[in-house]
């Protein structure tokens, strides 16, 4: 780290390479996102969000997660993590792949260090054998009268922080990819109808694909014990008038075609009717007590007031309204196959019930990147807690004096124990006799 920054680029680099800055940004993210859970958010509760004090709305606290400043906060965090990672990269690389035996006593770990005396030949052989037996990778170096060595175990553990930090940046990159190159929308369609993908209700992004979604069936299935099993939709993809794919989806089991995923979100009951006018037949799909249908070129509306009977013997209640009248001008009951005349202008026939499926439609090219980031995040954390790198280095001088030390991640207690065991083996003595070092047994006694 540059301790005396001069130019403004140096200053900026210095600022972003600071971990304090990273922690402050993380803290600010936690604080602001926490406020967002307490204040009503426009997306979840638009009415309540409108009612809070104006200042919160102006500052963006009623839609925290989509404000520019919240995104800037996450962006700055990413910059901080990148700068920190770049800063540490060469150090971590060298420590992992180019470890150097100590040149003098200062290079030997200070906190856990011990001197052992004995025959030079014996000490060297024992040290090499014991460390290799314990799974350490040892590199030795002769220099004049002395022999120095560095031995490492779990050296990939040095990368844990790097991996965690980069993983976080990858995660955010995935989210950004989804934001810029994806879309999100919903569609509500009856069984038997085809909807062009471009006509769905979009809430985010733009649709670039051009295909139709035909709903073959939409069902609300129940288990024998009466509990709801799931909602099922069978759909076909229609491209250039041809069916190119088909599949069944249900809640928790989406269907994907060319990067566009369909999720079962809701279900509603409805009716399939046909209207005859001047010899032409047109299909009508209406939800039970849903939006009415306006007969073309008239001011007449058809409304489904209720569904009775069963899927096998469907019966509906219908009402005909005229624009401007709050009372129906005609009403009645229709069974499957039955027809009625609407004000002498149309003939309406009831064909049967039709399920309406509510689908969420999404394209998010960033999802894979998000999962990659998540996997790396987990890997980094596992390495950091369960793959602690261990380093032993030392210098053996001609007169038979071996100075060696051990360093690891950050848990001193456990490393002390391991160092104690290592020394005992090299010396061939019981580590309990050595003052200043803690053994497993002593640790247990202290706990007791």
């Amino acid at each position: 780290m540059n301790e005396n920054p001069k130019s403004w680029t140096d200053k900026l680099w210095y600022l972003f390479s600071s971990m304090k800055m990273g922690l402050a940004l993380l803290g600010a993210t936690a604080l602001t996102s926490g406020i967002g859970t307490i204040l009503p958010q426009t997306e979840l509760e638009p009415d309540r969000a409108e009612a809070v004090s104006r200042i919160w709305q102006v500052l963006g606290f009623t839609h925290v997660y989509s404000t520019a400043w919240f995104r800037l906060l996450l962006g700055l965090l990413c910059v901080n993590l990148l700068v920190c990672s770049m800063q540490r990269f060469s150090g971590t690389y060298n420590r992992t792949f180019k470890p150097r035996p100590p040149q003098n006593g200062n290079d030997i770990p200070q906190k856990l260090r011990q001197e052992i005396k004995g025959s030079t030949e014996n000490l060297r052989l024992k040290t090499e054998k014991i460390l290799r037996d314990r799974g350490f990778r040892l590199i030795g170096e002769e220099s004049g009268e002395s022999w120095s060595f560095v031995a490492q175990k779990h050296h990939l553990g040095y990368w844990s922080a790097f991996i965690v930090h980069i993983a976080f940046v990858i995660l955010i990159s995935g989210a950004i990819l989804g934001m810029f190159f994806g879309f999100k929308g919903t569609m509500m369609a009856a069984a038997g109808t085809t909807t062009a993908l471009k006509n769905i209700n979009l809430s985010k992004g733009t649709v670039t694909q051009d295909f139709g979604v035909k709903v073959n069936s939409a069902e609300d299935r129940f288990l024998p014990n009466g509990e709801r099993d799931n909602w099922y939709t069978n759909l076909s993809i229609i491209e250039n008038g041809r069916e190119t794919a088909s599949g069944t989806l249900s809640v928790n089991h989406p269907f994907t075609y060319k990067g566009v995923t369909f999720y079962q979100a809701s279900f509603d009951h409805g009716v399939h009717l046909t209207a005859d006018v001047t010899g032409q037949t047109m299909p009508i799909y209406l939800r039970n007590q849903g939006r009415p249908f306006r007969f073309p070129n008239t001011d007449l509306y058809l409304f489904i007031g209720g569904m009775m009977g069963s899927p096998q013997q469907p019966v509906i209640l219908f009402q005909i309204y005229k624009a401007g009248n709050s009372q129906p001008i005609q009403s009645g009951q229709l069974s499957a196959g039955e027809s009625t005349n609407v004000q002498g202008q149309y003939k309406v026939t009831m064909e049967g019930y039709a399920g309406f499926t509510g689908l969420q439609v999404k394209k998010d090219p960033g999802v894979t990147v998000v999962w990659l980031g998540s996997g790396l995040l987990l890997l980094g954390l596992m390495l950091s807690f369960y793959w602690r790198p261990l380093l032993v280095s030392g210098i053996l001088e001609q007169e038979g004096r071996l100075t060696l030390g051990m360093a690891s991640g950050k848990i001193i207690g456990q490393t002390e124990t391991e160092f104690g065991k290592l020394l005992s083996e090299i010396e061939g003595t019981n580590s309990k006799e050595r003052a200043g070092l803690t053994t497993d047994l002593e640790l247990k006694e202290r706990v007791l």
Partner: protein
Amino acid sequence: MNQGLQGLEISMFYLTLVAYFLSMVLYWVWLGVKSNILGKFATALTIIGFAGNTVVLVARTVIAQRLPLSNGYEFILTFCWGILAVYLFAEFRYKLRALGSFVMPIPFLLLVFIVMKMGPDERVAQAIPPALKSQWLTFHVVTAMLSYGAFAISFGLGLMYLLKTRQGVTNQKDGLISRFPAAEILDDLAYKVIGFALPLLTLVIITGAIWADYAWGTYWSWDPKETWSLITWIIYTGYVHARLMYGWKGKRAAWMAVLGFVAVIFTFFGVNYLLPGLHSYA
């Protein structure tokens, strides 16, 4: 058969509640009187309570024909099971009986919450909505149970550390505190436990995101439960950074362990009862 099982579930629930209460009291008394027999009794009662808790969960699994991971009542019992599993491991592995005085109130109070606040209709096995029919739910809740359980233990260790190092009592030979292990051991253990729980919490969040992506088509929607799990994650990440990079040990680390668990409890409870969102059933 179901009626018999339901009877077993209910009686085992109350046995668990009583066992947790008595073991909590005995752990307290043991701290004061230092009778080994009392300590052993406390541990035995904890094991009985844990066994009862296990039976409740197994009975519920058989009755509902799914894992007991689908409503507030089942989550609390699963959370208690997680706390007890990690606690008993810690007590036997590290001979840490004193920890029981600080950990046992948590499952006891959680069960009291069920008795006081949940009506019979909230406690029976209910039909689950289609969104909950996913194997990711199992991964999500099982990892949450162990992670939250371990955070509860780090909370207990943090409290013990703070009591142990209160000014003027550090070297006290007598009194309750003398039963506690050395301060640095408490500190070290709390770090180890958080080292176990933090990757698990990460997995809880990731499995939740995968599940949300399957069910709702959105891996992250800033739902209050998600947001609070992220805040909890940030607090513990802060703990790890502060410890590893700035050498924050001892008191400051202990306070962070306590604060982290407050966030865990808020994520688990506060969000459901105080804030709106997608996790309304959990």
